[in-house]
């Protein structure tokens, strides 16, 4: 399964919403459920799913599918 797809699944699972609401260009602002609380839930799930720890700055700014992809690309061969 490709990385983008895995990210979409993590987000959909964290927010309890259907997968098709998350697209590669989705940002937190686009999704009502993706509030400040769920921001952290998603971040923790991303760490768990991909096996790495986000830095303080990354965690603060992880508000879109693209940003998540970037943080993974830095670490793992995507």
């Amino acid at each position, binding site marked *: 399964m490709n990385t983008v797809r895995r990210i979409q699944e993590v987000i959909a699972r964290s927010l309890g919403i259907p997968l098709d609401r998350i697209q590669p260009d989705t940002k937190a602002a686009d999704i009502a459920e993706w509030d400040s609380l769920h921001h*952290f*839930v998603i971040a923790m799930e991303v760490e768990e799913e991909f096996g790495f720890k986000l830095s*303080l700055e990354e965690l603060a700014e992880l508000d879109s599918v693209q940003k998540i992809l970037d943080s993974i690309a830095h670490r793992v061969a995507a």
Partner: protein
Amino acid sequence: MTDLRLAFLSSCTSEFLQQPLKSALELFSVRPSIWTGGFGQYRQDILNPKSELYEYTPDVIVLCLDGPDLLQEINENPFGFSEKARRDCAEDCAAETATLVDTLAQRLPQTTILLNTLAVDPLNTFVGLEYNSEFGIQDVVATYNRSLSALARRLPMLKIVDVASLAADIGFKNWYDSRMWYLARSRWSRTAAKALAELYAAAIGSSLGRLRKCVVVDLDNTLWGGIVGEDGLAGLSLGEDGIGRSYVEFQQELLNLYSKGVLLAVCSKNNPEDALHVIRRHPAMRLREQHFAAMRINWEDKASNLRALAEELNIGLDSFVFIDDNPVERSLICQVLPEVLVPDWPADSGEYKRALLELSAKHFYKTGITAEDRRAGEAYRAQAERRKLQESATSLEDFHRTLEMRVRIGRADTFTVPRIAQLTQKTNQFNLTTRRYSEAQISSMTQDPNCAIWWLDLADKFGPNGLVGVLLLRRLTAEVWAIDTFLLSCRVMGRTVEDAFLAVVAHEMDASRLIGEYRPTAKNSVVRDLYQRFGFHQTGVDGHGLLWELEKPTTRLTIPKWFEIEVASSGLVSAAI
């Protein structure tokens, strides 16, 4: 699934506990709806009598006061506090917490309150200075935590949840996530939130009586290393040194469960003589035959054996925990008997003790040990003796007479509240209405003049049975009482104890009329015709079941003549009234 109204009051952000708490409570078949107070508002929420908290009427309140929040002054000025100043700080914190809890207890007397012990990160500026100099912080934590014990003893609805020990177990470096603190003002890492949620869930499950009742253990490679049929007694790994010690310590923890009132049973594929020889004769065994409420040692399949154990012990399969080193056996039970809890068991006997303690922390979480708990194991053995007597008796009346039963009946008081609540939570068969009550609720009702809670204690020639009956009545008018709860432990069914109980209580209450209710469930059909037998007549049907009435119960109800009766409240001893 039980619905539960839960209020969460915290000194720091608690949102991240909600989802883990909901998941953890599912294990106990509890579905919470959660109300949270505003950030940092817990004092106002508690002290303001008109706050939303009181409108919400929670069943459980979690009051989560985090160490760093209460001790903020010291953290910000670590060397500005002398020992005396620190002592004052600890006492002030303890006093404030006591005031908050007392206020809650007064305004919500039926609500269970969970309060945590404080933990502070041991990696701090006092490393080295602590205990050796005039500076430190551990004394404040210790003084505060010690004060909670006195608070819990005073207030039956308060349960202290030892978060400090949990944090120590997890390790503070895993407990605290600095990113969550800086970005979200939350002090818990994902791991901490999950562990904390599980601890709170266990405490809540425990207050509702959702504990397992019996641990069934395998023998070979579970209670001892080796296979007795092949290695013989002398060839087993079981002793005070080396690998054998891992089994001894595992047995010791099982023995500790026995002392807390958990039943132990054996289910093993072996020749009974070989296995019993080890249990009776091996010098290093901590568990002996008398500690097991029942045994199935044979060559049949374990699922059938477990069913037989459930029947013999007269408890549901959903009360069992099955421990077996063999993954094939575990998998079988998982598939065939899904209500039985089958924990994943470590392959290494060195980890058995910890695995059992982790399991107990969830499923055998007890905040008190009643006298009946201590005797539970013995009680099952005495039960076997009574069954033998019954089989040899020439008539039922003869059996009742030769049992030499002595009944004590009294009004609920602080001492009997925990056992009464426990009985309402676990009794399913001889239970007319199956109303479940927490300790907080029973305690509150003892103060209500329109409520009368009676207990019954039974002893016979085989020994004490302990407190085994509860009658809870609610006043409808000056002399008319409704029977809200009438239950007897299944161990004492079929001995006419209920006849004595109701007759004595009716006499003590001087009731002119008694109203009874029968609410049918899957398990209580045994009492469907109880009120009819006592001469009540049926007055109607409501949404829940049948309603019954009895005029002049003091003349209509008689006490069977084979009982010796003592009413504790008035100190009377009489053979018949």
